């Protein structure tokens, strides 16, 4: 597929939109269908698309293994640390309302988005890892 001009062009054109859509889903997850998980999957699939069209090597060069691994941990860390931060702010684990923003409402909004961001990063990175692991040795 590497040589298919139409596919390559369209993919290049579509990639930014896919990724922006991922961010849209992430930001809107609070009040409409969507959220961190879906956003992560969409974002991850954009890299999978790169791998499918341009080959695994190309995709790996854009998302090196080491960065990928660290991203998995980072997302997880954002989630866990936010939860822990709520404790130190005086609430229960994951009680965003207690986060030091202006009001409980504000805290809930921002806290949730931070959490979703963590989820999205981890899911995206994990999606890519799964794909690269299962795709295995066959380089096409």
């Amino acid at each position, binding site marked *: 597929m590497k040589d298919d001009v139409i596919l390559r062009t369209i993919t290049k054109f579509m990639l930014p939109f896919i990724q922006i859509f991922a961010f849209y889903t992430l930001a809107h997850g609070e*009040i409409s269908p969507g959220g961190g*998980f879906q956003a992560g999957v969409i974002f991850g699939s954009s890299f999978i698309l790169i791998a499918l069209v341009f080959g695994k090597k190309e995709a790996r060069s854009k998302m090196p293994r080491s960065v990928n691994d660290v991203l998995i941990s980072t997302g997880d860390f954002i989630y866990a640390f936010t939860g822990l931060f709520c404790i130190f702010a005086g609430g229960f684990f994951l009680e965003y309302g207690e986060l030091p923003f202006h009001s409980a409402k504000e805290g809930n909004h921002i806290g949730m988005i931070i959490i979703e961001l963590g989820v999205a990063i981890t899911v995206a990175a994990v999606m890519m890892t*799964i794909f690269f*692991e*299962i795709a*295995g*040795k066959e380089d096409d």
Partner: protein
Amino acid sequence: MIEFIADKYNFWIAIVLMMIGFYAIIAKHNLVKKVIGLNIFQTSVFLFYISISKVNGGTAPIIWHPEGHAEVVYDNPLPHVLILTAIVVSVSVTAVALGIIVKLYKNYGSIEDDEIKLIEHNEPELDSK
């Protein structure tokens, strides 16, 4: 009798799917087919959950304020949320399963479980990895 079946069609669909999945898990020797069976099996449960969350006359549980309607009946959103989690789990299980199958193929050159057992029986390798 017909009514009994027709009334509870959601259960029947879940049961039929579940049995198809179960059959594949038990009877198929191909490991990928087993995983597909597992997925069908789990999907039947997801459908079952979604169907029990339906409220008569309800709509999707997304908050909206249509003009002229003071009250909107929503479906129960909780099973949706639960199933979302269960789907994540199911995806992860599938991923792990496929990863293992890839490794099995690399080691045995086969993804039929009876063949793998035969190979292992004929030429057991203790320290192969």
